[in-house]
């Protein structure tokens, strides 16, 4: 039996005998190619099989704060991909950190300086010691993101099995992005304690109620007694991909971002009588995290008309001739398309991927936080520049969505 799709050359619109849905399954590559390069006679615009323009992202929505048992939570839907993120904060006492007393002794004068700075309201990033920040968040594992795909989100991920390679890779990408963007300030996670100046006794007695006043009085006493860190908040950031239809990273990262923006940490203090950290359950006392910027991730895939063209030259030396021909064609008509936010169907046809994480400062200046490209070599410098522009436009859109939720 001849495969029915053999009759369908790439440029022939899929209309002959097979319904489009079946043609899409049998010859996915030809199907998508047919959509992207319609016959010149038909006057149709180049459009993806899912009806989007190549640079168009899927409809995105976000909703934050709906989960009861979290410090912050968010649901982000990008098209049919949905991610739920819950942030849970727990306390890490410095006495539970094996190396704490050692590192504290060596870095004590640096800490002292930081302690002094901490009393001023911090407005700008620059007034914090980045090295100290990094050391605390990264070395003490204060941010713990874990992504789970074992939710039945797509066939092929066996529920109950260990995290798949994809899930592990996504978890680590999120972790490294959290670290490299320095999104969370270490100072938000520290729980300080000001040892009482032994003189005024009433200070100690009213320690519980008047913690805030104590802060104010500190400036007077700080000279004699350096305040010390008693504990850190550890943020467990768990992401459940509820539905997977391509591009999980953008959705997961957006969910993390929205959940962290929603996160409230209770006011915590060292209780001398109980020798432990005690928190206030009052919402008025709790404070939100002050995040650094709003890094937005945008992923792209490159769809090639002839997926093997680029490789053939290397693998089969005789094909050089052919390759040269292909290069010539490239100049005439584009033989590859950069597809923004690929869906599950497109991801199966894509070798080369790119991911750009962009942030914009208040004056509108665009910063590239992260740029990643792998799986091929067709994207050149000019393309990358366009990707950054596209991502900058996406940043505006995501900012609006995240601020509304």
């Amino acid at each position, binding site marked *: 039996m001849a495969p029915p799709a053999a009759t369908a050359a790439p440029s022939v619109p899929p209309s002959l005998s097979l319904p489009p849905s079946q043609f899409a399954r049998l010859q996915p590559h030809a199907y998508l190619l047919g959509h992207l390069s319609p016959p010149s006679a038909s006057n149709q615009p180049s459009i993806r099989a899912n009806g989007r323009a190549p640079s168009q992202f899927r409809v995105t929505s976000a909703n934050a704060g709906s989960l009861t048992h979290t410090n912050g939570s968010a649901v982000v839907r990008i098209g049919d991909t949905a991610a739920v993120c819950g942030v849970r904060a727990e306390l890490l006492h410095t006495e539970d950190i094996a190396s704490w007393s050692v590192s504290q002794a060596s870095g004590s004068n640096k800490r002292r300086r930081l302690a002094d700075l901490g009393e001023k309201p911090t407005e700008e990033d620059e007034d914090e010691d980045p090295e100290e920040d990094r050391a605390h968040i990264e070395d003490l594992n204060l941010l713990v993101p874990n992504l789970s795909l074992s939710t039945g989100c797509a066939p092929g991920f066996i529920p109950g099995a260990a995290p798949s390679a994809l899930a592990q890779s996504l978890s680590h990408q999120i972790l490294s992005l959290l670290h490299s963007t320095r999104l969370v300030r270490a100072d938000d996670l520290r729980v300080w304690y000001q040892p009482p100046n032994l003189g005024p006794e009433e200070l100690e007695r009213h320690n519980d109620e008047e913690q805030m006043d104590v802060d104010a009085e500190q400036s007077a006493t700080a000279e004699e007694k350096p305040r010390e860190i008693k504990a850190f908040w550890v943020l467990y950031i768990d992401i459940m991909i509820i539905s997977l239809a391509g591009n999980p990273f953008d959705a997961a990262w957006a969910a993390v971002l929205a959940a962290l923006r929603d996160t409230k940490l209770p006011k915590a203090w060292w209780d001398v*009588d*109980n*020798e*432990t950290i005690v928190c206030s359950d009052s919402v008025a006392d709790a404070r939100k995290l002050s995040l650094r910027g709003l890094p937005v991730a945008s992923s792209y895939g490159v769809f090639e008309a002839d997926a093997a063209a680029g490789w053939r030259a290397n693998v089969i030396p005789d094909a050089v001739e052919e390759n040269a021909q292909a290069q010539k064609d490239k100049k005439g008509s584009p033989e590859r398309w950069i597809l923004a936010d690929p869906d599950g169907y497109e991801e199966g046809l894509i070798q080369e991927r790119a991911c750009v994480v962009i942030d914009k400062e208040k004056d509108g200046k665009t910063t590239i936080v992260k740029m990643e490209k792998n799986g091929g070599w067709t994207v050149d410098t000019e393309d990358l520049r366009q990707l950054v522009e596209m991502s900058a436009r996406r940043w505006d859109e995501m900012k609006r969505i995240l601020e509304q939720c």
Partner: protein
Amino acid sequence: MSNQRQASSASQVPHLSPAELSYLYSSLSLPKTPIRPDGRSPTQFRPLTAETNILPGTNGSARIGFADGTQAIVGVKAEVEKTVLANETLARNDGGAGLDRGEQEGSAAVGGHGSWVQMSIEIPGFRDDDALPVFLSEMMRESLVGAVGTREASDMAGGLKERLVINKRWHWRLYIDVLLLSQPLAYPLPLLSLTTHLALLSTKLPKRKSQGEEDPFFDDDWAVAEYLYPRPSLSSGKTNSTGSSFVRPPVTLLVISVGENIIFDPNREEIAVADAVLAISITRDSEAGTLKLLSIRTVDPPSRLTQPGVPNSENVSMLGAVAPTEDVAVLNPATGEEEVPGVWRPRRGGVKRSVIAEMVKTALKKGGVGEEVLEGLEGVEVS
């Protein structure tokens, strides 16, 4: 692997042909007088041999063997452990606020905690996190820690959980290890439950010599050790030898319904054709002296996974050989479905409420199966 997957909550799928299943079903569903393959009456248990205190290294142990060769061993170990409650780790050092909390703390410590009883079940051919062992241990543990006596009774007022409290800061932790020694021929629940019951009956805790709130220490003389479940003393117990005024460990009975009949302690073949399978946990109500229901769980009947028989009218090789009138589907009153008599159909659907009520009633009624079983176990000589 897939065998075990199917065998999730209800043992293995029996390898019986549809014809055998159909024959079994029709003899077990004979109105009022079911005929069981081994000739037992519907409420009769399989003959068993039992002994206790077989493992010298444990606080209590028992072995039960059924006549079909399946046997199980249960060992109970008790360890003293410090009571740690999340909120009270703080409150303990808290001198000032402790005054208002005193009462609450006291009542909490007396309550005991279900997690102090740990149960593990080992069944050959199953991993300990497979569905069957997990389901069985949860089922048995929940009735064990749930069995609470009445408030008036003295020592075992809060059931097993409270018995484990030593004082506000210390408690016993109980490890119950259940081992099935043979392949699970039938659904192993009755065997494991009876053995656990017997092992707990024989469990002794050393006599405490410390007083009140001090750190506990114990008499090393095993002869004066006290039973975990106190027994009637010989002097007063003569008139009341069933021990009805004492809390007893629960026992879980396996009950099936076939047609309109209710059958206890089914063997492997019988459970294979059951319409419904229930696990009913009962214990003696120390106050009324009657039996009390602790929990009911449905068990997935393996009959749902069996292979259907093919009626002659649909059998190609028999085409034309039988008159079409010969097998006409009739309504089975028990399942409410059209069936051809003598042709096996896997069971589907659930169980009617009236059937459940009848099953529970049979288990609980005075002089019924439950009492018979508990008395039988009581009679096992605890040496």
